[in-house]
């Protein structure tokens, strides 16, 4: 069987949009996503001797892009003021609003009917994307790196340069918010009333 070879002249046409979408979904900014795609292709060109043919061309390019995305987050968070991090740990009105005086749920989480079936629906992913875009910026970063990129907890702490307590606080708030958003916009809505992506 022939080993996969690299075809740099075709990268932009064959993979450009896919890489762009991958980046855009994770950094939620068009210009940044474009830069990341550019960095990926340029870096891949320079390092093309390192391609061992163990994976497909696209998988290899995506892995380079993943590193670029992690570097992007590292840079962004290097300048994070300590006061903002402290605010994350202090508490969240949204979270507090979910529980009553006795610390019980004010409104019960609803039963989600066959959640895994939603994974097959384009509109669900569109709703998820909208929910992620609606998260406060720092929380969104943590949620994307941990839940979407599936980095381990330790990897995310290392990328963002935060403590376990801080990451824990951000993910807790992110999970509550994301859960609510998915329930309000998908699982708690009758099928025919769910928003469709345009």
């Amino acid at each position: 069987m022939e080993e996969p070879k690299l075809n740099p002249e075709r990268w932009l046409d064959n993979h450009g949009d896919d890489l762009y979408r991958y980046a855009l979904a994770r950094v939620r900014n068009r210009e940044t996503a474009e830069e990341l795609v550019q960095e990926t292709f340029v870096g891949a060109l320079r390092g093309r001797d390192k391609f061992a043919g163990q994976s497909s061309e696209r998988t290899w390019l995506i892995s380079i892009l993943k590193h670029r995305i992690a570097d992007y987050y590292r840079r962004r968070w290097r300048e994070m003021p300590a006061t903002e991090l402290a605010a994350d740990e202090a508490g969240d009105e949204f979270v507090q609003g979910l529980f009553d005086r006795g610390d019980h749920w004010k409104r019960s989480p609803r039963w989600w009917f066959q959640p895994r079936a939603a994974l097959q629906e384009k509109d669900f992913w569109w709703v998820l994307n909208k929910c992620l875009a609606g998260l406060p910026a720092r929380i969104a970063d943590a949620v994307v790196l941990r839940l979407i990129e599936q980095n381990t907890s330790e990897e995310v702490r290392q990328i963002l340069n935060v403590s376990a307590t801080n990451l824990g606080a951000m993910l807790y708030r992110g999970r509550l918010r994301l859960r609510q958003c998915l329930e309000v916009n998908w699982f708690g809505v009758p099928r025919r009333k769910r928003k469709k992506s345009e």
Partner: protein
Amino acid sequence: MKSCHKATHLISESRERPLKGRERLALVWHLAICSMCRRFKAQVRFMDELGEYHTHWTEHAMGDQVLSAEARQRIARAMRESNN
């Protein structure tokens, strides 16, 4: 432990680190009597698994997002310059 607020926090924490003995006991006890938090726990697990389908996600939900012509030109130029 009666607090759903604390239980939901422990549920989230348990996805990040092993719970201490006392924490785990308190959570198990709470989940035994609270169906709302049991539901929350299942939903957290579902959300944690979303990343497994990320390729699917980007292709299907964002099919209309493409590199602009200007971006393509910039990237092509950068690639040419890098080749020299």
